[in-house]
């Protein structure tokens, strides 16, 4: 197998920042994937015609969770290194492995990054914002909580994927990601509990009963509607907004 230097793997990680730049309904991340893989293929295939053919192959359909895509990039670079040395799978074999990597990492990554880390970062940022209305810290907390993990995995993940190949999807990774999801879920519940308590009594001073009731009503309605995908939370929020406007108009109209 041809070894790829750390600088090439890091260049792939940097290019993965643009993985979704050309996202489209037909090939989804396909072109971005080829762009991120290009530094590896340039080292592995000195012959220009072969390299162009490989790059064109990699513009085919691909989609996964964008952060964990780095692991797949590293694993496929390893397969391409084997292929360049004459021991790896052919184009069809690589396409099949890419497909499996994509769907598996999407399932794991969606749970960790979209359903756990992103809501947790948002909840933490909102809690700090409720407590500090005149400070830039809420934004710093939200951004740093998510981006530190996201960028570390994106930049270093290519190296992890290359070191292990497709075996990167083994039990160890799954167990670690599952553990992270569980920890974030519990931490998120604690943060939300504190945020709701602060909203009811900012700094310990209870808000008027009408406002506490509005918060409780929103919480109850949110829990009832969260089980259904449609209407979306934004559509519900807009409808609540219109009802609130009507209520305010009628109340002030009478007084």
């Amino acid at each position, binding site marked *: 197998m041809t070894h790829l230097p750390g600088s090439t793997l890091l260049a792939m990680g940097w290019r993965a920042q643009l993985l979704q730049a050309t996202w*489209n309904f037909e090939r989804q991340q396909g072109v971005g994937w080829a762009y991120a893989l*290009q530094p590896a293929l340039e080292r592995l295939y000195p012959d220009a015609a072969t390299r162009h053919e490989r790059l064109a192959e990699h513009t085919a359909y691909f989609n996964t969770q964008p952060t964990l895509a780095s692991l797949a990039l590293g694993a496929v670079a390893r397969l391409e290194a084997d292929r360049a040395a004459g021991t790896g799978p052919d184009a069809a074999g690589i396409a099949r492995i890419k497909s499996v990597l994509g769907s598996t990492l999407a399932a794991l990554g969606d749970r960790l990054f979209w359903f*756990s880390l992103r809501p947790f970062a948002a909840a933490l940022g909102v809690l700090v914002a409720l407590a500090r209305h005149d400070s830039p810290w809420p934004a710093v907390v939200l951004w740093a909580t998510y981006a530190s993990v996201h960028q570390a995995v994106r930049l270093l993940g290519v190296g992890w994927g290359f070191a292990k190949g497709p075996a990167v999807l083994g039990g160890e990774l799954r167990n670690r990601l599952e553990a992270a999801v569980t920890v974030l879920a519990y931490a*998120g519940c604690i943060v939300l509990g504190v945020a709701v308590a602060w909203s009811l009594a900012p700094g310990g001073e209870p808000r008027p009963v009408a406002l506490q009731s509005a918060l409780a009503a929103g919480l109850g309605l949110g829990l009832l509607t969260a089980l259904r995908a449609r209407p979306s939370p934004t559509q519900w929020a807009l409808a609540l907004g219109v009802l609130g406007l009507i209520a305010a108009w009628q109340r002030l109209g009478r007084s």
Partner: protein
Amino acid sequence: MNGAWVGTVLLGGVAALDATPVAQTLLSQPLVTATVLGLMWGDLPTALSVGVVLQILAASTLPVGSRTPEDYATGGVVGTGVALALGAHAPFEYLRQSAMLVGTFAGMLTAVGGVPLIKWQRRRNEGLSHWCEQALRAGDERALGRAHAAAVALAFGVGVAYCAVAMGAVFLLTRGAVVQESMRLARAWELLQPLWLGFGFAQLLHAFVQRRLTRAAVFGASLVGAWLVLVMEWTR
């Protein structure tokens, strides 16, 4: 003031880039862009009041699979930008509150209205990917870089244009109402802000709890514990 408008519109382009095409670091989240705008316009409390509500709703909107989520990147910038343009440094609290309400509505409507624009960009990218594959097969390796530069430029341009049009339109349409109906709008904001916050908290809670009673119990214990600590500290 003109500098703040230009800065807001440019931030709309940056947020549109971070949302999907470049890096996805959450720089585009409403709370982050609201903070930048608050510093830019010199009124952080107004910006954060709108940013928190839009943030809690944006957190429930997930870009999973090939679904096109609501565009809270631009929505966050437009919502906070409108609130600041209408209410920053206003002499009375109820004027600021009425601007916050209009800004929050503008942010949500901009987020919903941005979905067809994102879909349009994604369809444009299909042509770009076809062109790129053909160029690669013809031996032009730089086609990949050029395709990405074109897609990034398109996303930035659309973000800037959409932000400018939405913010300008809402500002012109609602400027009079914010002053004339400020008492009613401020009253509605007082009622709706906690309602929206509660609604958003519930969406996040659902994402964390996932029908597991232990997690629900942790939330309940955390709420009661924090409330007791806060009230005891206040009464001391």
